[in-house]
């Protein structure tokens, strides 16, 4: 059996990195003659190579046992960190999904970013994401998963901040970086705390350890909660969901990646950690709770948005909430399958919306209308994407949602209800967007909005074709149950909820007799959802306020109390315009006094053990 491609699968992230490095010479000011475009082409080529490599590797590895590789990275004192790689058909399928979607996003960007001067920066960042995510799916070590998540946090900051001269972009980048970093650092605490307990970061060994360990349940709970925090931030779950919505200020082609696979990185780590997380029932409960709250809350918020990208972004949070529910109920395989079907459907939705946003120069849903006759391809793609995302038989997510609901049916029946509600609400919200964009009569903004360039249409139609073929793939992989095994108790409510949601929405939004915009009464409720449950404001008056206040107090303390005497004298001298004659005016005493005070404080802390002994 030839194993050339699967044994060299670690090259896949490197291709992208090489592309990213090659893009640097085309950043402003180094190579001027050619313009920045070659950087994009180089990266697209490298992604193609990565995709082909992964495909060939998949052919080799199909039906083969899982393979492991290991490279030693760091050896220090008794800390050994090695880069473990797991080569299995699941990982390589994920690689194909990542490289494939990135290829689509890169081709899409050739059209979308045509006139942009940040071209080289943009492509190298996309490549960084590709490299990071490829590394994440290959690596079999919690430590490197953390490393990748943290690097991707930085990547998010830079990618959202691509158009850095707009103020909303700057705050969006800041919020994305900080909220994700909060999650990452709590994850880091978990990573640091896990090693002394388990002695390993390797996922396979961690799963074995979790089987046999007799760890104190309280410690297990704390540990698992810390480990959940990283994915929580990445997957934009309550209460760290704020960033995804603001991230929509970034360029659209990056959104294709972000809304589909970048958010899934968190879910991937969560799925990998599932055996450890199962140690703590509290952690599982928290996952289910957060997932359910986010799924329902975010779908409600999505319906109240008037920005098309933001509306979609809340549906992303909602679906990631479903993944959290799945992992919390120990369905890691099903969760992975949901991620797969979800990613394809969502990328199709984003691509079809992207073209509309580009030509119509607005993201405001209320300014759209009547595009069906002008952009039928986009419209069809949107419909296919929407149908694949919700439980609409026989397309992709129907099967995965049904599978999750089926597993929940006996253990957690109320979660099936959550699933049905979220599905119905998502169907409502997607149909609402469709009707507002494509239905109705053309408005001032949409009168001239033709179908986009080939670079936009090609990846979009290709993804549509793929989305339509997903059910065939699923049946090949035996992910679709036999008819006799299909749990109609869950399949029928799911399908009906789709129809009800979509039908109600279409009735409301396609009906000219109902005046638009439709708002909930009272207005406060509408605003509550429209402004994202006032999360941003909540943060501003709580954590941001507290950190800002504490830092100001400490700085004040530093300037006026610790350094007080000196500054007082110093300021007085400066204001009175005198030159500083320290020895003459005797100010040196003040320094010695402050040094003395500092020394006394320091000594008392250091000698605390001694002093406490004396008092006994």
């Amino acid at each position, binding site marked *: 059996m030839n194993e050339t491609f699967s044994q060299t699968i670690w090259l896949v992230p490197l291709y992208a990195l090489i592309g990213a490095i090659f893009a640097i010479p085309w950043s*402003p*000011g180094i190579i001027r003659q050619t313009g920045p475009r070659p950087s994009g082409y180089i990266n697209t080529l490298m992604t193609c190579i990565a995709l082909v490599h992964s495909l060939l590797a998949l052919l080799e590895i199909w039906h083969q046992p899982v393979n492991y590789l290991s490279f030693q990275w*760091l*050896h*220090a*004192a*008794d*800390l050994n960190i090695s880069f473990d790689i797991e080569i299995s058909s699941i990982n390589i399928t994920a690689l194909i999904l990542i490289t494939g979607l990135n290829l689509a996003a890169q081709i899409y960007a050739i059209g979308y970013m045509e006139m942009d*001067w940040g071209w080289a920066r943009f492509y190298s960042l996309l490549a960084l994401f590709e490299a990071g995510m490829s590394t994440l799916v290959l690596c079999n070590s919690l430590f490197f998963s*953390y*490393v990748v998540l*943290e*690097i991707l*946090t*930085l990547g998010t*900051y830079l990618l959202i*901040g691509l158009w*850095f*001269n*707009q*103020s909303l972009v*700057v705050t969006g980048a*800041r919020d994305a*970086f*900080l909220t994700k*970093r909060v999650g990452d*650092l709590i994850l*880091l*605490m978990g990573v*640091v*705390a896990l*090693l*002394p307990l388990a*002695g390993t970061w390797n996922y396979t060994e961690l799963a074995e350890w979790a089987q046999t360990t007799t760890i104190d349940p309280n410690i297990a709970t704390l540990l698992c909660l810390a480990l959940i925090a990283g994915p929580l931030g990445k997957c934009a779950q309550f209460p760290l969901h704020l960033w995804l919505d603001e991230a929509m200020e970034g360029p659209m082609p990056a959104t294709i990646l972000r809304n589909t696979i970048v958010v899934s990185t968190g879910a991937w780590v969560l799925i990998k950690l599932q055996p450890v997380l199962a140690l703590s029932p509290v952690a599982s409960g928290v996952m289910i709770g957060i997932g359910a709250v986010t799924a329902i809350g975010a779908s409600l918020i999505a319906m109240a948005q008037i920005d098309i990208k933001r509306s979609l972004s809340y549906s992303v949070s909602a679906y990631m909430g479903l993944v959290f529910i799945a992992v919390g109920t120990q369905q890691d395989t099903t969760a992975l399958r949901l991620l797969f079907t979800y990613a394809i459907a969502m990328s199709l939705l984003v691509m079809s919306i992207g073209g509309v946003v580009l030509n119509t120069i607005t993201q405001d849903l209320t300014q759209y209308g009547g595009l069906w006759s002008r952009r039928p391809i986009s419209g069809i793609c949107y419909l296919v994407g929407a149908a694949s995302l919700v439980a609409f038989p026989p397309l992709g997510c129907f099967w995965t949602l049904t599978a999750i609901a089926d597993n929940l049916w006996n253990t957690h029946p109320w979660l099936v209800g959550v699933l049905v509600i979220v599905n119905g609400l998502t169907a409502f919200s997607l149909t609402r967007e469709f009707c507002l964009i494509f239905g109705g009569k053309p408005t001032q903004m949409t009168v001239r909005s033709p179908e986009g360039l080939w670079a936009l249409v090609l990846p979009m139609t290709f993804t549509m074709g793929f989305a339509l073929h997903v059910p065939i793939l699923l049946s090949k992989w035996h992910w679709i149950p036999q008819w006799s095994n299909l749990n109609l108790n869950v399949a029928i409510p799911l399908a009906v909820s789709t129809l009800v949601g979509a039908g109600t929405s279409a009735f409301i939004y396609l009906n000219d007799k109902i005046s638009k915009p439709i708002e909930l009464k009272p207005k406060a409720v509408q605003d509550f959802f429209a402004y994202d449950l006032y999360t941003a404001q909540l943060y501003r008056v709580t954590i941001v306020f507290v*950190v*800002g206040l504490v*830092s100001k107090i*400490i*700085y004040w303390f*530093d300037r006026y109390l*610790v350094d007080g005497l000196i500054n007082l004298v*110093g300021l007085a*001298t400066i204001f009175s315009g005198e*030159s*500083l004659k*320290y020895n003459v005016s005797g100010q*040196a005493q003040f*320094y*010695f006094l*402050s*040094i003395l005070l*500092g*020394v006394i404080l*320091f000594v008392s*802390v*250091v*000698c*605390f*053990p*001694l002093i406490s002994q004396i008092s006994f």
Partner: protein
Amino acid sequence: MLSFLLWLPVLGAIIIGFLPGKFEPARLRQITTIFAVIIFAWTIWLLTQFDLNNSGWQFSEYLSWVEPIGLSYSLAVDGLSLPLLALNGLLTIIAIYSIGENVDRPRFYYSLILLINAGITGALAAQNLLLFVIFYELELIPFYLMIAIWGGEKRGYASIKFLLYTAVSGLLVLAAFLGIAFLNGATSFDYDTITTQQLSLNTQLILLTVLLVGFGIKIPLVPLHTWLPDAYTEASPAVTILLGGILAKLGTYGLIRFGLQLFPETWSTVAPGLAFIGTVSVLYGALSAIAQKDIKRMVAYSSIGHMGYILVAAAAGTKLSILGAVAQMIAHGLILALLFHLVGIVERKVGTRDLDVLNGLMNPVRGLPLTSALLITAGMASAGIPGLVGFVAEFIVFQGSFATFPIETLLCIIASGLTAVYFVILLNRTCFGKLDSKRAYYPPVLRSETIPALVLTAIIFFLGIQPNWLLSLIEPTTDLLAINANQTEQIAMDN
């Protein structure tokens, strides 16, 4: 071999000082660079000759100097001092290029830079307590002069404050050393002969505390830090790089070399207090930095925070944590130097350090795109993003200290989140945003300014991706210093 490293800069300083006045500042800078490069190359050569399997002293030189008082001219290096020597050589070159070509009184200026280099080399390589103190104190004079002559508006204030604080630090260290020797009845101050085993625990504790206060001022630790923000902010970028990058490391070097190594028994008594002070420094530095409006002052406060990690790690006293402490010294030296160098460029080109005025420097046409890109890298390295050397050092510190001081370690991790907060503030205001194109007529950034930054960035990346080169150098020495069992050993014991 080490003598060459020590006396070549002195020779260079003398030559430059006596050069005739007709030399252009640019020419003087070239001559200084030649000396600095030879010194650095010599250090690199020493690195290649260094035996990684030998944890003891290497390249030893001995000359009995003033025998009656136990002072000898004795030099040697080990895995703790050699990386710092290399850092010293590198940062000297960077410092030469971190100020524009036209310096006032250039001969004096460049001589002082070389003298600083010599002083730090002497302190790091000294094998005799008194010799160490001599260099440790002599060092202050060139630093004082450089702050007082080439500093900012409040330079007089800052330099006097710096001098008084650090002179007290030197005196305390000297007092502790004299105490160790006299109470022992030792006749020599050589490292090899000095021990504290015979002293009672209480005497040891007193001596150690005096020593810790001395070095604590130099590092500096809260509440002995008030000289730092003023000195760092008022000094020119070159001085700040040397001050923060390497001089402050003499404090942590002393802490490990003399505190931990000479007082292994008492160390565990003071360790909880030290870890507490370290954690307070970390949080205090980070929180104060958030409140700053001046980017240089912000970076100065960040330095207090980052030096606190070293203290926590040293206090924890496991093999891994001490390794992390030394690695953090190097990592912090590199990153801080890059930050101050870039802040210096921004200040010279834009003419301000005020966060409320700076804006949009990423702009590829009118802004400073390369400087901004490097500033982002430096900020992220300081915030501990993986792939850069700061992460490796901090991670080892966290992992190493967690077994001994879990709560303190977790607080330090929180502080590293706060680090991200102020760097995002800095980057968002400085690099991002809309450039005011009416006022943005900045002089171009010269190649002589970008190349040092690129070199530092390359090293930061390289050691972040391949940290073994750094760690294998340090490890043999720090393994000997450990006083606490490591966590994996504990697991072995538990099983």
